[in-house]
Each structure stands twice: as C-alpha cells, then as structure tokens.
C-alpha cells in the first residue's frame, strides 16, 4: 500500500497527498458530485447491526451503479449511542439516526441518487422539531472534541485516514525537533491530568519515570476500563487507535523506553481487533518498530489481555497482571515510575490521557491549557447513561456544569421523570444531587462534593431509583471485584454490604446506619489500594445526600422510591377499584381475588391482594386502568 516512511518530510508529503480525504468530510457543502457515507462501527451501533447496514449500503451502491460516486466506510463511535445506529453523509453532513439495514436502499436511492434527505431518519427533538445536520443537534452543540477528535470522522482500519488527520505528526515533531525534556515540559504546561481516575498530573508522572535510571523502561496504556457504565476508552480505541499508539511512542521517547504494553479488557474484542490492525499498519509504515521515521528511536507495542478483574485498573495490580500473576495491588511507594513492570521504571497512563497527547504536542501545551478550569485543563469524555434521553459519549471542556450536560446535551430525564441524582466515578465515586447541578465539573470540585471524576461514567438517576439500592449496587460490585488482599476491603466491604442488605430487606436499625458510617470511614482510611479506599464513597455520598431515605428504610421500613421489594406492600384501595379484574388476570401468582365489596362500579365486585401470596412484582399496579390508580404500595 504505502512504503516505509523514513523522515519527517516523507510523512508531510504523504499527508499533503492524502489530506483531501478528510477536507472533503470536514467542510460542509451541498455539493452532490461525490459522496462519502460513514457508518458507525462502534460497539453500541454494531450491536444493532450497523455492519449489516454497511454491507447493504455497498450492495445498493453497486446495484444502482453509483459505487464510483460514493465511498462507504465504517468509522468510530459518534457518541450518540441512544440514536444508533448512526449513518452520516458527507459533504452535506446529514446525520441519520436509528438506521436499520433495510433503510440502506433508501439512503442510496433517495439521498445519493436523488439528493433528497430522508425525513423519517433524521434526528427528531423531544419537541418534535427535526434537524438533518449533526452540528444543529443539541447533543453536539456544547461538546468540544479533542480526545474524540477523530471518532466518527476517520476509518480506524485505514492508516491513511489517520495520516490525513495529521496522525503521527506530533511524533515526528518530537523526534526531529524536540528534546525529551521539552516534550515533558510541553505536557506539564498543558496541565493535563490523568483521565483514569485520580487525576495525577501527567507531565509529573513522565518526569519521574524519566528521572529513574535504568536501561529498560516500559510504557503502559491502561485500557482496562472496568467501571460498569463507562465506555469512553473503548470508543477511542475503536475509533482512533493510532492516537494512542502515537502518544505511547512519544512518551517512550520522552522517558527513555522502547517497549509499550496495552493492557486491555478481554471483553473488548473489537477494540483489540482495531488495535492489532493499527499496530501492524503503523509498523509497516515505519511509524512504530525499529528506527521510527528513519531515526535511532525504536518503539514496539504489545497487546496484553485482562481477564475480568476490575482491580487491574489500579496500576500496580495491572502490572502484576501483565507479569502473569494475580492482579493484587501492592503498596506505593515504590511507584511504578521507580519500580514497575518486571521491576523496571514504568509509566502508566490511561487511554483518554494518551489520546490528548498528540494534540498537546502539535498545538502546544499552553493552547491546551486555555481550555478548562484553573486546576483541570482540557476536556473530559463522559459516558452519559441511565435515566436520560440522550445516552452516549460526550466530550466537554472541564468546568462545564452538570446542568449543561444533563439538560442541554443529554436532553433531560427520560419519560419526563424528576431528576434525583447523578452518579459519577463509578464504584469509586459518589452521587451529586440537585444542589450540585450548577457546580463546574473538574477533578477538585467533584472530590469536594464527595464523588470523583473516575474514568468518566455518568449515570443519571430519577425519582424511581432508591439511593440505598444504588449504594448497594456499587458495593456489590466492589465486593465482587475486591482482590481480597487487605482486611478492610475484603471483610469490611462485605460487612457493609450485609448491613445494606439488612436495610433494604427491612431488618435494619438506626444503629446499623451508624455502623455503616463508621465502617465506611475506617475502610477509606485503612485499605491498601485506591479501589478499597474509594469503595465506601457510594455509601458515604448517598448517606450525605439522602439520609432521609436511609432513615425511612430503617425507621418506617419504607422505601420512598418504591424500589426495595421487601419493603413494598401492594394494596387495592377499594373505593378506587373499577372491578375490571385486569390486575387479577395479570397476576403471575394468582394472589388477587374478588371481594364482596364494591368500589367505583356498583355492579362489579372490587378486588383485593393476598399479601401472603404477593411476590411484589408490580404487574397489577402497572395494569390497573383506574385513574387515580386503585393500587398503591
């Protein structure tokens, strides 16, 4: 395809030759001469058959004889997973949502052949207004895409498209124009902080690793994204794998390492596949491997698989896992920068952090630092999910408020329900409430509010969500994922979970709440690793924000959100009962029977529920046609 690139000039020449590919996609026009169709190949969309759409589009393009007029390719995640599968048409930037394979024919025949927008496939706002262009959709308006810059733009399986997007130019700049110290300074100037959780300054980390003297050093990309409900790293790897490879090579040059490892979850087959292709293509072009771009610098990257252990996101555990051991964390110091993989100095950064690096190098750290808040620079990608209209990946400048994310970008709460809380930081984070909606989001503000940035999961909760149950969900996760090494995490979290179970079962006491609080603080103070130390956060933050709800569970044995089954008590309010029997007919356990009383309808007997038989499934309540409902809990 292409021959080895041996210098910075050769890379620039290639760029100049191919940059039009993307110019065509970037500049919006109503030209109908030529088309490009991008089909989202992210995990969300491919789960809903987007690859079949791709095939069908190709088929119909051929069938209609336009295969020379239209290029069709897959691309990385557009982020708007709620409306997937997404198909975007260039150069007019028409954005089709919820496309089905059978729509392929229409797209070719109506849009490509007749230049007509297909109205029923374009985005429809909640208020019924429609818009055909991506840029006009609120979901995208407030976003600022740096880490996701190429996702949804390029075909991740074709390296030329990456080159057209200025890929590897930052690496060339580093190798030909910058000293390692200058690179590290640039990263320090950018103010970039680790996007994986705790937010440690990336430049500092590199500096420490560079300062360690050793013949062998390692670069690691942490792609063990285990936070349930977060998928930003996967989307970057699927949509723009080269940005991560390039950044790792840059760091390798800066700290003096010539080997990199990408530690990735085995549950991410598509990301692994794209990484393998990317590594192979980059190596063929001389952008990885020996004598990169004709210089003396060599850098090789291997892919290492996780095997289902959340704790391996912790860097020391991750290192042990790469070494072929149980993923148990060890105490820091010594930090990996001093003693890491195979006891050698090692620098670990997460995927999103890496994806920012080429931009920082090309545009300068200072420019990057213009975005964001005083202590948190740049942008952050969030995986917005839960009870929200626009589920998806969003990248916003640090300092954006929750309100902007949830209401402007996310389109508000699903089904018109009431906002209750938003959980950030996954099992290590906490819940933010109504009063925090206008807090600018950055590392420090989130910690001050009892949560944390984490990797960027953002789960929106509504009035139907019981906060005790949510805390229990996360704690269940931590208990399952605890490595079991240290006492506080191994036994302490289990005991907390047992107390929470007691509470949601209706056996809790006020004293249990005190115990819970005590244990939570102890575990935070005394656990060995960050997973253990942050495990009580979901409990502590829900107790801080929703203590009333906890109290209702233990004192009144009542779940205000109506979600804790064992605290529910379904009852038929006879005066409201129509006697229609819908409830009885739908009851799965035959727990509802006629009484000799009458409710609203004087001719039909009202019903009642046998509490001994009731399994509290709630079917009766949802089926009851009476207004107001004749069933309460």
């Amino acid at each position, binding site marked *: 395809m292409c021959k080895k690139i041996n210098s910075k000039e050769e890379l620039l020449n290639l760029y100049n030759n191919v940059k039009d590919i993307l110019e065509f996609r970037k500049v919006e026009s109503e030209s109908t001469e030529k088309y490009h169709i991008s089909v989202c190949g*992210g*995990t*969300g969309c491919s*789960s*809903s058959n987007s690859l079949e759409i791709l095939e069908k589009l190709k088929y119909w393009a051929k069938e209609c004889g336009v295969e020379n007029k239209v290029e069709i390719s897959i691309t990385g995640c557009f982020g*708007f*997973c*709620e*409306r*997937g599968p997404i198909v975007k048409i260039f150069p007019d930037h028409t954005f089709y949502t919820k496309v089905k394979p059978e729509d392929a024919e229409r797209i070719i025949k109506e849009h490509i052949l007749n230049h007509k927008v297909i109205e029923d496939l374009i985005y429809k706002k909640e208020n019924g207004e429609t818009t055909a262009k991506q840029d006009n959709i609120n979901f995208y308006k407030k976003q600022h895409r740096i880490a996701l810059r190429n996702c949804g733009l390029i075909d991740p399986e074709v390296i030329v498209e990456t080159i057209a997007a200025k890929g590897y130019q930052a690496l060339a700049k580093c190798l030909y124009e910058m000293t390692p110290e200058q690179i590290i300074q640039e990263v320090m100037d950018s103010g970039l902080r680790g996007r994986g959780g705790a937010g440690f300054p990336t430049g500092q980390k590199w500096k420490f690793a560079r300062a360690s003297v050793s013949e062998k050093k390692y670069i690691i990309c942490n792609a063990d994204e*285990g*936070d*349930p*409900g*977060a*998928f930003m790293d*996967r*989307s970057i790897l699927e949509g723009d794998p080269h940005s991560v490879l390039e950044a790792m090579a840059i760091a390798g040059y800066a700290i003096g390492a010539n080997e990199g490892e990408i530690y990735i979850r*085995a*549950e*991410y087959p598509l990301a692994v596949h794209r990484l393998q292709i990317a590594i192979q293509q980059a190596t063929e072009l001389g952008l990885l491997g020996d004598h990169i771009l004709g210089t003396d610098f060599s850098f090789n990257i291997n892919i*290492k*698989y*996780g*095997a*289902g*252990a*959340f704790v391996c996101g912790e860097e020391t555990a991750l290192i042990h*896992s*790469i*070494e*072929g*051991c*149980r*993923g148990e964390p060890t105490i820091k110091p010594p930090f990996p920068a001093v003693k890491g993989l*195979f006891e050698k100095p090692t620098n670990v950064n997460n995927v999103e952090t890496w994806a920012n690096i080429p931009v920082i190098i090309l545009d300068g750290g200072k420019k990057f630092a213009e975005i964001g808040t005083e202590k948190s620079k740049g942008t952050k990608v969030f*995986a917005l*999910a*839960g*009870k929200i209209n626009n*589920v*998806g990946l969003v990248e916003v400048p640090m300092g954006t408020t929750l309100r902007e994310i949830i209401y402007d970008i996310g389109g508000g709460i699903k089904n018109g329900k009431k906002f209750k809380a938003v*959980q950030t930081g*996954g099992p290590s984070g906490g819940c933010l409430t109504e009063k925090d909606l206008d807090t600018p989001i950055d590392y420090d503000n989130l910690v001050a509010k009892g949560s944390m940035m984490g990797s960027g*999961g953002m*789960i929106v*909760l509504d009035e139907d*969500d019981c906060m005790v149950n*949510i805390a229990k*969900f*996360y704690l269940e*996760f931590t208990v399952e994922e605890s*490595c079991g090494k240290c006492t506080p995490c191994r036994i302490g979290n289990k005991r907390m979970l047992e107390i929470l179970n007691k509470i949601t079962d209706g056996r809790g006491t006020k004293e249990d709440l005190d115990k819970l609080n005590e244990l939570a603080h102890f575990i935070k103070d005394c656990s060995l690793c960050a997973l253990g130390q942050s495990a009580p956060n979901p409990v502590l933050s829900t107790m801080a924000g929703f203590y009333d709800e906890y109290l209702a569970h233990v004192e009144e044995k009542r779940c205000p959100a109506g979600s804790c089954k064992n605290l529910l008590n379904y009852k038929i309010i006879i005066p409201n009962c129509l006697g229609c029997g819908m409830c009885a007919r739908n009851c799965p356990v035959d727990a509802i029977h006629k009484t000799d009383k009458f409710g609203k309808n004087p001719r039909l007997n009202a019903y009642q529920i046998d509490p001994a038989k009731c399994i509290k499934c709630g079917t009766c309540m949802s089926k009851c046609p009476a207004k107001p409902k004749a069933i309460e809990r």
Partner: protein
Amino acid sequence: MKTNKEMFDELDEFIDSLNCNPSELIAILHRAQSIFGYLPFSLQAHIANKLKISPAKVYGVVSFYSFFTMVPKGKNVINVCLGTACFVRGSDKILEKLEELLHIKNGETTPDGKFTLTSLRCVGACGLAPVMQINGKTYGNLTVDDVEGILAKY
C-alpha cells in the same frame, strides 16, 4: 471437531512461540480456554509443567480472574449486562426472569448443557440498555416480557 491431541499440540505450539515465558501465563490461559472451552485442573497442570511453574500458581491465577472458567460452558452462553446503565434500566429483573425460566442461578449451566447464564459488567452498549448477549449477539432495549421469546430461538 479437533482431537484431544490436536488441541494439546495447538496449545503447546502457542506456548513455545512465547518461549515458555511464565509472564505470558494469562495470554496462554486465554488461548487454552479458547481451544478447550474451559480450564480443568489437568489442563492447568499441563500448562504449569510447560512453563516450569507450580500448578498452585496457575490455579491462583485462573481462580482470580472471572473470565476463566473451570467448568465447561453450555452450548449457548447468555451474558446479562449488569453495568450501571443497564442496572438502572432494570437488567436485574431480566436476570431474575432468565433464572426463573432456565431454573438455574447466575453462573450456572442448565443440566442439559444447553444454556449457561452469566452476567458481565458493561458491554458498552449503554444506549441500548438493558442488554443481554447470547453467544455474542446483542439484544437491546429489553423488557422482561421479551426474554421468553428470545430464549425460544435457541
């Protein structure tokens, strides 16, 4: 269908290609599981022997990671996503329904070997929540009522 010997040869070739390096244990276990379907003790001992490490160490690693299984899986593997996005949209109810229909608990295999029911944390298809996968095929926007119909296809 490969013979036992062919499967062992394939594994040994892979281990040799990694120079019998014990730090490649996890990659080797992945490969072994993909060849044999599961990792019984005898297979772990074989790998330990090849790598010149203790079977105890191999077992310690196998039992640590949830991806590895020491019992054969059923013909159809059902994975219910219990990631947060799916959980708040009711995937726990989907799991309960599956348990009820298949008469097994999460993590178990039906006596006829037809289904294995497992859960995982986030397949990354949060836009389709709640989701489950059967043999890698994703079913999204599930309701409890959909489950029976989907199972009937297998």
